[in-house]
């Protein structure tokens, strides 16, 4: 019984971290129609910036959690203004190629700046150690990840459903020309949404830093996971990102615990099953078509 409790909490912890990352990918696709291959690289940048702020500049973790994502968002504004603006009106394949190039540039830059070695970040004192919960010991930091994930979930829901900014973002997603006709500065919306997606990726990176070793390949690992989340949940869907992330979290948490022989296959089996029955993902647009 304690095993199931532990696996459940672990699944939530993995799942909500994945949600933070994948939801940014999904918002960017939903509004801008861009599959951002560089999303994982932005996540990695968030983690490395946090490492620099904490281990080199000596700042507390909390300062890094606030500052690093803002830094990445600023970089995203530059990427949007310098590179992406040329391809928004083009085919999705072009954005895939361009963002893949950005991914390679960021990966190589990270290797040049921080080296190829393994770096670690310590959790803040407040969150180190573990607590007893559901009959097993759980890292306090994992609970923190779960709490932040839930807070972001609530915040995003509020943003999209209850605020003017959220409505503008949705309007721009639905029909950009009409939005423009209604005097919405869609140029600003586009940049803002891309920066917001990058901010979310970087928040994920900072959150991941105290539990996962930093290396120059960490972005590539997470982007594959994020794509699986998006395929399961549905591309461009906000609740889809949540469903996909929780399902993948459960696959990792329970699969590793109870079906370790096939843990390698499970995410792909899950993805294949969803594709068979819901080709657009569980919450994907046109899922019923």
């Amino acid at each position: 019984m304690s095993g199931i409790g532990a696996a459940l909490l672990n699944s939530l912890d993995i799942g909500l971290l994945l949600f933070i990352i994948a939801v940014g990918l999904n918002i960017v696709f939903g509004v801008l129609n861009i599959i951002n291959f560089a999303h994982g690289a932005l996540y990695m940048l968030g983690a490395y910036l946090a490492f620099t702020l904490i281990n080199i500049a000596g700042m507390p973790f909390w300062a890094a959690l606030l500052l690093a994502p803002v830094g990445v968002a600023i970089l995203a504004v530059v990427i949007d203004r310098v590179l992406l603006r040329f391809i928004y009106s083009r085919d999705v394949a072009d954005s895939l190629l361009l963002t893949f190039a950005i991914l390679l540039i960021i990966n190589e830059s990270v290797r040049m700046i921080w080296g190829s070695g393994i770096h670690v970040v310590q959790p803040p004192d407040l969150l180190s150690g573990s607590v007893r919960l559901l009959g097993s010991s759980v890292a306090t930091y994992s609970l923190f990840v779960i709490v932040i994930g839930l807070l972001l979930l609530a915040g995003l829901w509020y943003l999209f459903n209850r605020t003017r900014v959220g409505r503008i973002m949705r309007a721009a997603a639905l029909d950009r020309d009409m939005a423009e006709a209604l005097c919405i500065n869609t140029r600003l919306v586009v940049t803002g949404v891309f920066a917001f997606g990058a901010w979310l990726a970087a928040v994920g990176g900072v959150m991941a830093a105290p539990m996962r070793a930093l290396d120059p390949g960490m972005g590539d690992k997470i982007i594959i996971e994020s794509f699986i989340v998006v395929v399961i949940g549905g591309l461009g869907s906000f609740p889809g990102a949540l469903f996909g992330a929780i399902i993948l979290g459960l696959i990792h948490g329970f699969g590793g615990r109870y079906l370790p022989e096939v843990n390698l296959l499970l995410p792909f089996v899950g993805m294949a099953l969803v594709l068979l029955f819901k080709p657009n993902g569980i919450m994907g647009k046109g899922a019923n078509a």
Partner: protein
Amino acid sequence: MKKTSIKNLLVAMTATATLGTVSVSYAEDPIRIGGLYILSGSAATYGEFAQKGIDLAVDEINGSGGILGRQVEMVYEDSQGKASVAIQAARKLVYSEGVDALVGLDSSGVAQGMVPTMPELQKPLIITHAATPDVTGNLCNAFTYRISVNVAQNMKAAALVAAETDATNWTTIGPDYAFGHQSWEFFGNYLKELKPDVNLMSETNFPRFGAEDFTPFIDRVMDSDAEGVLISVWGGDLVNFIRQANTRGFFEKDMEVMFTVGAATEVLSALGEEMPEGVHLSTRYWYEAYDNPVNDRFVKAYIDAYGTPPSYNAEGAYAAIYAYKKAMETAGTTEGPAVAKALSGMSLEAPNGTVTFREGDHQAMVSPNWGVSGPMHPEHGIRTLTNLQIFDGEKVARTIEETGCKL
């Protein structure tokens, strides 16, 4: 006016630089050695360590007159940890870069894929890191050598360590590819021979390479009745594993924990004090294990140059360049088949003592190092190894018949 003079200066400088190159190229062409390592992605640190070791060796050799009077020059290609990429890169190195010999390979999977193509290339390859027994076993060939410890040697040593403990119920956590599975297989077979009453649990754990979250597997082992666990997770994954295991209290359980590549210096420096004390750690070369002039020189030069103690991967790559020096000087040529032949049965003084490439399978008879993690090193910021055991390379190696190698 000023602008022009700067421009002239630049032209002059360029001309001088070109003259310099021209005059160098009048000398005999350098000997070129191709290096095939992982230079990008998560495991790029391994390629970088190899390059650092090679740079030291090449500088030393070139500084003292080169090989056969010729300078040595390295050409690197990124294997990306994929066999198909590595094969293509090896062909490129041989056919278009014209290298005389190859060193490299970090991954067992890559080695299994690439080694069979070596006879076609007709150039010798010294493997400096990848540990699968197959490449000096059933896949062996006249051109393939390995200077580093292989899984069979290290697991024989591991079994000797494990047999000394009271643990009878053993399981494993290892990456889900050749390295993880072969480590467990060899360990289990050797341990069973040494101590027939051990129980090798059927519940084994093979998370995927790069899994990031190892908690489910950690919990599974903690809830089982395992008394001993062999962990072959390595690199960044191992750092993740140990940090996650720490928060679960994994090391407080009454269990023998053995890390097959735990004493890799990159892992130790990343973890610092987070590496628990009192666990069994192994490495293919521990920089403080050998008291000989070659090692003293190597360790000192490495620390002077890079500020950290050398990892096993740097040592293997460093020694491989010296192996080529000796083999080429013995053969009196850089011709691939002749150099490959000279390597067979050859001995050289390396940082880890006298290294001999056994004739029957081309595996170097080198010693796995096992120890127990101790207090922090006062200068290097990493855990020390206590109760260090240096296993005799010859004694932990399989017999030629066992390797399945037919040369």
